[in-house]
């Protein structure tokens, strides 16, 4: 059943994706987003939706994209439920809620990391291949500061320390190796940036391996939550908090280190948004990302902004690693998969788009959690986790190459 529905959806999505731009072009209308709208409409409503779209040829506002998008997801979900009635994602509501909450929590942290990558891209025009290594270093620094060098140091203080150090490494690296891109001393700045950040990634990973060894590290949880039952100790159906777990609504149980990490990510996101939208320097950063020359004319030094952006980007990666070192075991190559995921997120959200990185993080977190939770074959469900992100990436590149929030080319 599911296979037939999928085949039907893919077939009409292809027809819609290919034909709609042509029809709009023939009618001399704006072709932006027509491929995506056609594909979504075809997937959701098949020939009927396409006939409506082609006949009316409306201006493609968000509503024309969102409605068929939601319908297509619902159609897929319904077919899945009919095919696998016993699947936990169909029969067990609390399982689904748990997966969604887990996905959103990890998505927040992925988003924080991707935000750093997209910030660097939007201002320097460089895709940093060393982003995952800063994630790794952030975690290592918190571990070493709070466990080895200064045992007993509050991990939240160590977190700030890790943020500062990753920021400084980023600043120094930008001054030494990336500044030359803007002075005309490098013949092919794009390729140069890829190679030099790639080199940095290897350097940092193997240097860390040489310094700290391969034994996995893990910081103890940052916060022990107080014992709390709400609304009443006899019947804590809304919230039940213990040192190691938090349980909502009697069903969703989350380990407290994850909750802490998600709270840290949220606070950082708020601070970052405040910084970028409310302070002079933040506005200057955004101005440089919009138009470098125009920003320079108004008295903003683009080189300083480059340094600042790279430092902030590496700091965000460092912070997401720092907040996760209490959740996962930490080894020098832990950044490799994380940085691959960050690339997927920023392409999905739109290269250089800050809200895009955030929303992209949440989407990837959700899809990974639901994919691993719902794929019927237990042998494959978790083994395919890295692939789920790639499937979304492929779809986005096919249907909307600029990403969800990307600037139109």
């Amino acid at each position, binding site marked *: 059943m599911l296979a037939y529905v999928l085949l039907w959806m893919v077939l009409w999505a292809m027809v819609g994706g290919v034909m709609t731009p042509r029809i709009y072009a023939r009618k001399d209308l704006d072709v932006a987003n027509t491929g995506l709208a056609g594909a979504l409409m075809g997937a959701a409503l098949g020939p009927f939706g396409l006939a409506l779209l082609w006949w009316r040829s409306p201006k493609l506002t968000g509503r024309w994209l969102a409605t068929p998008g939601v319908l297509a997801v619902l159609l897929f979900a319904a077919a899945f439920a009919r095919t696998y009635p016993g699947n*936990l994602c169909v029969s067990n509501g609390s399982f689904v809620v748990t997966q969604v909450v887990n996905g959103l929590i990890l998505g927040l942290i992925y988003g924080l990391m991707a935000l750093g990558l997209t910030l660097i891209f939007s201002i320097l025009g460089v895709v940093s291949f060393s982003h995952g290594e800063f994630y790794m270093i952030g975690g290592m620094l918190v571990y070493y500061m709070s466990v080895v060098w200064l045992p007993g140091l509050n991990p939240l203080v160590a977190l700030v320390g890790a943020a500062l150090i990753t920021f400084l490494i980023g600043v120094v690296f930008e001054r030494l190796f990336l500044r030359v891109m803007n002075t005309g001393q490098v013949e092919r700045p794009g390729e140069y940036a890829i190679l030099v950040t790639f080199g940095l990634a290897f350097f940092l990973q193997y240097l860390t391996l040489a310094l700290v060894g*391969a*034994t996995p590290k893990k910081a103890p949880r940052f916060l022990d939550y107080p014992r709390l039952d709400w609304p009443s100790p006899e019947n804590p159906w809304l919230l039940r908090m213990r040192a190691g*777990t938090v349980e909502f609504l009697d069903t969703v149980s989350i380990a407290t280190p994850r909750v802490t990490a998600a709270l840290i990510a949220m606070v950082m996101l708020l601070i970052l948004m405040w910084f970028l939208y409310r302070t002079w320097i933040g506005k200057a950063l955004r101005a440089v990302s919009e138009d470098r020359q125009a920003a320079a004319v108004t008295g903003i030094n683009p080189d300083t902004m480059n340094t600042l952006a790279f430092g902030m980007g590496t700091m965000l990666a460092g912070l997401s690693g720092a907040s996760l070192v209490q959740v996962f075991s930490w*080894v020098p190559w832990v950044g490799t998969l994380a940085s691959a995921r960050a690339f997927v997120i920023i392409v999905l959200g739109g290269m250089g788009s800050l809200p895009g990185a955030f929303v992209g993080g949440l989407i990837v977190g959700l899809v990974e959690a639901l994919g691993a939770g719902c794929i019927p074959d*237990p*042998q494959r469900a*978790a083994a395919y986790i890295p692939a789920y992100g790639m499937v979304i990436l492929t779809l986005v590149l096919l249907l909307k190459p600029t990403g969800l929030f990307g600037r139109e080319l």
Partner: protein
Amino acid sequence: MLRSRRVWWLLAALTALVLALAACAPANVQQVGSPPAAEEEAPGEEAMPAQEEAPGEEAAPAEEAAMEEAETIKIGALAPLSAPGSVTGGEAMKAAFEIALEEINEAGGVLGKPVELILVDTAGQPEQGVAAMEKLINEDKVVAVVGEYHSAVGLAVKEVARQYHIPVVFAETWNDDITASMYPEVFRIAPLSSEVAAVDAKFIASLGGIEKVVIMTENTGYGIPAAESTTERLAELGIEAVTFSADLGTQDFSAIIERIKAEEPDMILVLVTGETSYNFEQQAAEAGIGPQDIPMICNQVAGDSESYWKNVPDGNLCFYRRIGLPRALYTPETQAFAEKYMARTGKADVESYAMEAYDSLKLMAQAINEAGSTDADAIIEALENIEYQGALGTITFPVNSKNPPEAAGVEPKWWHQFPKPAITMVQYQEPGQDSKDAVVVFPEEYKTGEPIIPGR
């Protein structure tokens, strides 16, 4: 002016980077593909000043190479020293190789010549393993190869060994097919995956009251067949098994753990290796299905107690499998090696793969000595007849060309296979317990205490 200042800055920074790398690299990192960096410095090198190689020497004239060959006996070694391989395992093996090499050279080397060990990184990747093996054979001209940790690499490398007719003693590759293809060049001292599965299944059945087991395995040449053979063995004993698998390097297991919870297993068996297993075990404990909630056989890396407790603080009552003689039955050889190994690494116990690495090299050295030459056929014949006393006990290869599997009435997987690596099941019974104090709970003959079964 500005331009030249920048160039100086860059040069200075580059020099600093190179110096830092040069200072750090030899301690832990070997890379394949760049011969000078890939060469492991032999610890007994002071005794062999002639073989110091300068970069670029691979273009040395033939007679020089021949002279060098005459001065030392070169043995190749494979181990995963970078991700995605198990670097923890690789580094333990490296330390063990160094101890074995020191002992061999102190005892006068092999055939009266010092042994030079060339250790190459396989990163746990079959293609990198094949490249490493070809480099060892073609560039370094080794006479034999020992080691390796990952089955996937072993499966690929045995083909190269066959092609070039170079004897190999595999240390820690468990996949049955490695010996089952019955190549004359291939020997193994690690246990067979299917035999380990049988021990796991018997142990699970011995606990009583277990009807359903969840197997959490890794998506590799070791993990998938190991899960399959365990499922078969469990089915023979009337126990149902459900397998979940994940890639090595997976950090987040929350979705899978919720699914495992819904299966309501009576027991969990973890076949994922390395830090990935720590991630799974601790997250399972946080979700309420950890070793203190239901019986769990953790991965054998739990044997590194210091790192286990740091990464799995809620992991008390975990069972784990230990390969090699239990402490009470240590031979003088095991004891001597264990002391040297613990002194060198600062660890509280010896991991099985360290013992296997140590034995693989010493075994090969003894075989070459007994063969009286570095000819491959002579070494293979010596290996078939060997009786070697080492850290794992007395190693022999009873199923061989004179006693093939058909004649011996056994399956082909027993070809050139060390038949009796002792396999025991151990349990941590106190939080923070040292692995050397952990209680041996299975099998009967090695038992030092009763298992504590959570929830009973």
